């Protein structure tokens, strides 16, 4: 009978491990993907294979790669797949409610398909919006930016408790009392009355770049009323962002048609990296029936910037969103649940070792349990790998051509091919590491029709 149970456990373990994601080496796969990105290797066959195994993870990363490669239609296809999976997940949550995955406790969370993060959902729609703009399909771009904005609203609700706490903390702080004592004549304050509100707590919880970029889209699509609202929303989050102030002034002074401008959007550096951290509890001090009790947890660490800023002719870029902070806040919010799962996971594996040693010592008992633990003890480090560290913006007149993008040391990063001076334009540059960058140009076709 004992042999029968033992065989059953071994077979179940092998069946569980075989063909599931639990043993996948995501670190290696994601590092390989990142290298592909740096090498501007635009072959998607690898990504397509991986999508079979973990659809959301590789759809998001595939969409980012295709965008980087200038294959905007393919990028939309990848992101559309990702969005359909997000929807599926939300519907499942609707029907089944939240529950702890037992497989993640018995094996590890990698056995479950990737579920993504709120900030990834927002950025997915922003990138899709950019994809459509680059394809000169402003009708569909509008839908994507509207989606990004609704996701911003949902992110605000998701972090409602944290935002309220941060606001209460802000109200108690000295900063608040100092702000309230500032004279009314202070131009920083009087420009936008009541801007020092809970909104200024928001930048780390939702993404000001998504709001600003949506505003910029509506500006280029001649919907100045909506653009104005969105620039104001951005300013409430970032009261001292001078470029956004100037953009809002452009609309309020009714000078949208008089002069045409070019904006520079700069994606700087590499965003937070998820890593695995393993801690070993000295279980052998308490019993000789357990070899090891270890827990693996995800951690995040900052990575490097590329150029600290760029110059659009003479205009220096300034930060509009700190992606690292946004990633950190969401990571921290989810950490208690991740920690609990990891501890339950460790407890279950210690129990397996103990049970096997107690009942099947003659077959290797705890050592088989240890093998199982070592094989499956992996923290979930899956993520959209190529988000930047921060976003920056600048604007200049389109008449100032040729347009050069300068590095901080004054040398030219790139010269932009002549742009039509009869309509506004956006230069979108991503530079993840020094000397590696990609330029995308958006300029709406004047005869645009769907």
């Amino acid at each position, binding site marked *: 009978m004992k042999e029968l149970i033992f065989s059953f456990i071994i077979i179940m373990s092998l069946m569980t491990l075989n063909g599931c994601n639990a043993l996948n080496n995501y670190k290696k796969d994601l590092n390989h993907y990142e290298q592909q990105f740096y090498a501007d290797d635009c072959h998607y066959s690898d990504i397509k294979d991986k999508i079979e195994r973990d659809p959301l993870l590789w759809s998001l990363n595939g969409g980012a790669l295709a965008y980087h490669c200038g294959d905007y239609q393919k990028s939309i296809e990848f992101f559309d797949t990702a969005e359909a999976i997000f929807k599926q997940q*939300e519907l499942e*949550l609707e029907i089944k409610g939240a529950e702890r995955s037992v497989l993640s406790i018995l094996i590890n969370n990698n056995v479950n398909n990737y579920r993504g993060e709120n900030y990834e959902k927002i950025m997915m729609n922003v990138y899709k919006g950019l994809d459509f703009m680059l394809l000169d399909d402003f*009708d569909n771009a509008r839908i994507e930016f509207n989606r990004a904005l*609704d996701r911003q*609203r949902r992110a605000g609700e998701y972090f409602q408790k944290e935002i309220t706490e941060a606001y209460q903390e802000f109200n108690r702080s000295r900063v608040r009392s100092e702000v309230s004592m500032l004279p009314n004549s202070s131009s920083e304050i009087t420009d936008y009355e009541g801007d020092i509100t809970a909104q200024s707590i928001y930048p780390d919880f939702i993404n000001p770049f998504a709001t600003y970029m949506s505003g910029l889209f509506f500006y280029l699509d001649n919907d100045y009323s909506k653009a104005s609202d969105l620039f104001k929303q951005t300013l409430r989050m970032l009261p001292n962002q001078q470029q956004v102030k100037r953009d809002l002034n452009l609309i309020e002074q009714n000078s949208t048609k008089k002069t045409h401008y070019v904006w520079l959007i700069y994606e700087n550096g590499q965003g937070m990296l998820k890593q695995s951290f393993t801690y070993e509890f000295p279980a052998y001090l308490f*019993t000789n029936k357990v070899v090891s009790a270890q827990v693996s947890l995800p951690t995040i660490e900052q990575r490097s910037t590329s150029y600290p800023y760029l110059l659009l002719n003479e205009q220096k870029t300034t930060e509009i969103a700190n992606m690292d902070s946004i990633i950190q806040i969401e990571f921290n919010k989810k950490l208690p649940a991740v920690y609990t799962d990891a501890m339950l996971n460790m407890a*279950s594996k210690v*129990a397996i070792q103990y049970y096997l040693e107690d009942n099947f010592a003659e077959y290797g008992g705890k050592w088989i349990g240890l093998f199982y633990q070592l094989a499956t003890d992996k923290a979930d480090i899956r993520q959209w790998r190529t988000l930047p560290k921060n976003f920056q913006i600048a604007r200049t007149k389109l008449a100032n051509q040729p347009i050069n993008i300068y590095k901080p040391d004054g040398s030219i990063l790139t010269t932009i091919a002549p742009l039509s001076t009869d309509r506004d334009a956006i230069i979108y540059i991503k530079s993840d590491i020094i000397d590696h960058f990609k330029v995308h140009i958006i300029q709406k076709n004047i005869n645009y029709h769907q």
Partner: protein
Amino acid sequence: MKITKPFYKTITAITLGLTLTLVGCSSNVEYVTKDNAEDAVTLGLDNQDFEQAAQESLNSLLTSNALNKPGGGRYVVAIGKMINDTTIRIDTDMLVKKIRIGMLQSGKAVVTTAVAGDNKNVDDLIYDVRELRDNDEFKQQTIAGKGTLYAPDLSLTGKIAQRIARTGKNKQLVEYYLQLTLTDIKSGLAYWENESVVRKLGSNKSTAW
């Protein structure tokens, strides 16, 4: 403190028992099927919404006198830009088509497909045939001559706007505003406007699209 063997056995049994029980009562991923799809509320616009909104707009248009041309005759209407300002991909033709048909059936207006706000509402053949003017294969007198196209008197433009707001703890209210405007092209004056509102209330756990 000495920990006894029965103690370990009890703990082990409880842990394994719990985990096995949990394994038995849940699964990793469950897809939405025909059986449980009813639970998933659709907050988007469906055919029925379009039909209803279009009918409402048409009734308003036909009873407004905006299409009653002074001195008789019929107006030439061009279909202008229809802006989809929502989070869902909509074929705006669904809204416009019923109104076009209604206008034609009323006998008060004709719709031109020679010029439109969107290329998809332009019949390319109008111009393709005119390209044949020097083609010997065609009887030249059967090809439309110059100056035969009618310029529109009126343009019909529209917008589908959307407002999403959370109501209560877990609900969201999604409102769609289907707005139409009929403008006199010569004067730039709007002869008729209508707004139909569609409201949907559903769970806030998922997005409206």
